[in-house]
């Protein structure tokens, strides 16, 4: 297992290096550079200003030379400076990362808890009315556009009832926990409702298959309680495919949710990555995307390791 983990870590490092170049090159291939974007905002900027600023920002150099310069800097721990946020990359990134982890983490845990409950309940009584109702709920969640759901929640709970704030992460000048939580409710509800349907379907399918296995029948024949059968025997088997899905979703924890963040004016990683890519902020886009890549890869490694715990038949070579 140690050898397996070491090999995978080396693979992850290789993928990260490759991805850093691919991301840099892809952003570089987009038309225009940061100074061209500046020029749009100020038509009076002269050709001399444009040339001067391109030199100041270093975008007059060939793409590969810029990448090598960035890589050299990054290896020494300096991820550079974000042009869009006018701050060192880590200063721009960390508050947004914290916001995203809070938002995505809360909705992830909530959605998972709901999905485990609903999916298991549906699997226990397949094709019943209860199962049909959960299926309907799941498909509704999956099919509802996130922006529409977000807007409806804002209109009902903020504009209509006035119970919750409609946007932002906190009331200006106020930093108490209650205020932060109040601002989290609607975006978390949006993301939870949008993702719980998909997870529920996976859990239902996995649990239904698990409940049909021989060892469950044997457990029932031995008189094990339903709770023990579900929690101890079936859930463990069912978690193997679900773990794969969850591991793949992990990258989302740090890459944020662009639509939800935009609708709730929530400063998270999704909006940051979008703005960084569209604004040709290489340093910031690279750091954010690589962080998401590394998180996804590590989550998949963790999932691979978890398979061995969930299913003793799995061996690592």
């Amino acid at each position, binding site marked *: 297992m140690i050898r397996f983990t070491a090999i995978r870590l080396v693979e992850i490092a290789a993928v990260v290096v490759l991805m850093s170049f691919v991301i840099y090159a892809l952003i570089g291939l987009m038309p225009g550079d940061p100074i061209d*974007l500046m020029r749009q905002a*100020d*038509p009076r*900027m002269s*050709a001399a200003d444009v040339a001067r600023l391109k030199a100041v920002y270093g975008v007059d150099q060939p793409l590969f030379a810029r990448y090598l310069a960035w890589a050299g800097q990054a290896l020494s721990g300096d991820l550079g400076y974000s042009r869009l946020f006018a701050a060192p990359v880590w200063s721009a990134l960390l508050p*947004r990362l914290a916001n995203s982890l809070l938002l995505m983490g809360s909705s992830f845990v909530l959605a998972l808890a709901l999905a485990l409950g609903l999916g298991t309940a549906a699997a226990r009584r397949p094709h019943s009315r209860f199962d049909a109702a959960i299926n309907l709920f799941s498909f509704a969640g999956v099919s509802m556009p996130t*922006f529409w759901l977000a807007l409806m929640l804002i209109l009902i709970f903020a504009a209509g009832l006035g119970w919750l704030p*409609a946007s932002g992460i906190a009331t200006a*000048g106020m930093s108490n926990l209650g205020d932060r939580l109040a601002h989290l409710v609607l975006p978390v509800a949006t993301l939870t409702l949008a993702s719980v349907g998909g997870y529920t379907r996976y859990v239902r399918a996995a649990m239904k298959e698990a409940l049909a296995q021989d060892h469950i029948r044997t457990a029932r024949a031995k008189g094990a309680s339903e709770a023990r059968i579900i929690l101890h025997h079936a859930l463990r088997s069912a978690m193997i495919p679900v773990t794969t899905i969850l591991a793949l979703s992990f990258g989302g924890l740090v890459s944020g949710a662009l639509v939800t963040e935009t609708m709730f*004016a929530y400063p998270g990683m999704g909006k940051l990555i979008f703005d960084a890519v569209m604004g040709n902020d290489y340093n910031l886009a690279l750091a954010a995307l690589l962080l998401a890549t590394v998180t996804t890869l590590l989550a998949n490694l963790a999932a691979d390791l978890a398979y061995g715990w969930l299913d003793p038949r799995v061996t690592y070579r």
Partner: protein
Amino acid sequence: MRLINVFRYTGTWRGWWRRWLPALTVAGLLSAPAMGEERESLTIGITQFPSTLNPNIDAMAAKSYVLGMALRPFTVYDADWRLVCLLCVTLPSIENGLAVPVDLADGKKGIDITYTIRPEATWGDGVPVTTADVLFTYEVGRHPESAIGNAELYRRITGIDVKDDKTFTLHVDKLTFDYAAINDFVLLPAHIERAAFKEPAQYRVRTRYNADPTNPGLYNGPYRVSEVVAGSHILFEPNPHWAGPPGHFKRITVRAIENTAALEANLLSGTIDMVAGELGLSLDEALAFEKRHGEGFQMIFKPGLVFEHIDLNLERPALADRRVRQALIMGLDREAISTSLFAGRQKVADSFVNPLDAGYSAGTPRYHYDPARAAALLDEAGWRAQGGGLRRNAQGDTLLLELMTTAGNRTRELVEQVLQSQWRKIGVDIRIKNEPARVLFGETVPHRQFDMAMYAWISAPEDVPRSTLYSSEIPDASNGFAGQNASGFKSPEMDRLIDALEIELDPMKRKTLWAAVQKLYATELPSLPLYFRSDTFILPKWLKGVGPTGNQYPSTLWITDWTAQP
């Protein structure tokens, strides 16, 4: 409605529960005070968050808007589009002796202009605003590595003489009619920023406006920044060292909500009090909002200087013919577009000069919808109608033009479809090909890879169209594709008029030159004028004194006029 207010979130859960629980049992509590009744705070919604608060790095509408409350430029154009002093005592002029034309060594005319900083002007930490700040700002502006965006003004200032702590004279190497306008010369506090400028190349990184934006010494306006949550909001509080008339509000929050549907919902929920016209809803969205909720708000539609037009690539054989260009504009019913899509709130443009501008000429040729005349002009130009209604020339080529605009801009895409249908009626086939803004403005327009491109020019009052109509401003490899004359318009007469206009000090003679420029533009039609955009301000009924300018200087510069009335 009262019930809703009882439940409305007011910023703390403790406060929410305090209202909510009694409300369930005691109907009398329906009269509990509604949010915002004290009205000492104001929350403004805008659609963009500024990337930096340094006034001289990166031009950005959101930054101008928020800094309007906290920094005083020397001069700006006010709501009547007149140049006024904000940080200076008197606007220099040749008549009052504060501006003196001089002969330069190269035989050209320059000008020496003397300004006096308001005696009471003070930074938010109590340090007076002085000529030391002027000299420091000049040093930063002129340094090639300091990342100042538009350095033209600093290049034109050849030197500064300091008379005392408050008075200085600028030596400018060109005498232009707008010599007194130093709008881009926004002072930086030398006592704070000098340390960040030790390494000029690092200034954009180290400026305290980024590293320590709540430092009160960075601001000299009626308000100062007291909290910045990047991407979310900026909080302003009164500047205790402001000696001018105080602002009414004790707290002003500017909240960035990029999605306009969410912006509307925030307004309706009371999370924000108003939507700024400078960075708010598009006109069609505002008109729809007015229909649904207009009664509850003040809606101000302010025609402005943003000029929507269609650039025509004059290198394309069909568009090189003036008759075709004139036919295209006569084939458009712009009045109908304005009426049906914008409720007549966006006036049809005759040229790039707004009717509210001092340079506007009523004698500018005006094109009305005349499809018969448009068809005749196309016939004359050799484009004859064939079967199916489309036109072909003698070589058998169809009159097919590609129309581009910024993908995702709903208003422009809507207009585009109307244009396509109207031009089809005179036999011009239009293929719509839209691109994201960064592709259109980063690649297609500068490299002139278009037939027709619909977008907007942003200008100032009496803004001489050098960058957009002068022949040397055609973008090409020699100027790094940096010019703004994307049509490729070359006219020695226009060049002469622009040169003459810039240096004409006599307002009457200048008016004549402006008229000639507009006439030439409207005759040659290097671009098709559509309309001037209107900004829509959605304000609560209790807010008074907001004066939209319609130019690039935001209403927040006059924040001390804003009051809340019961």
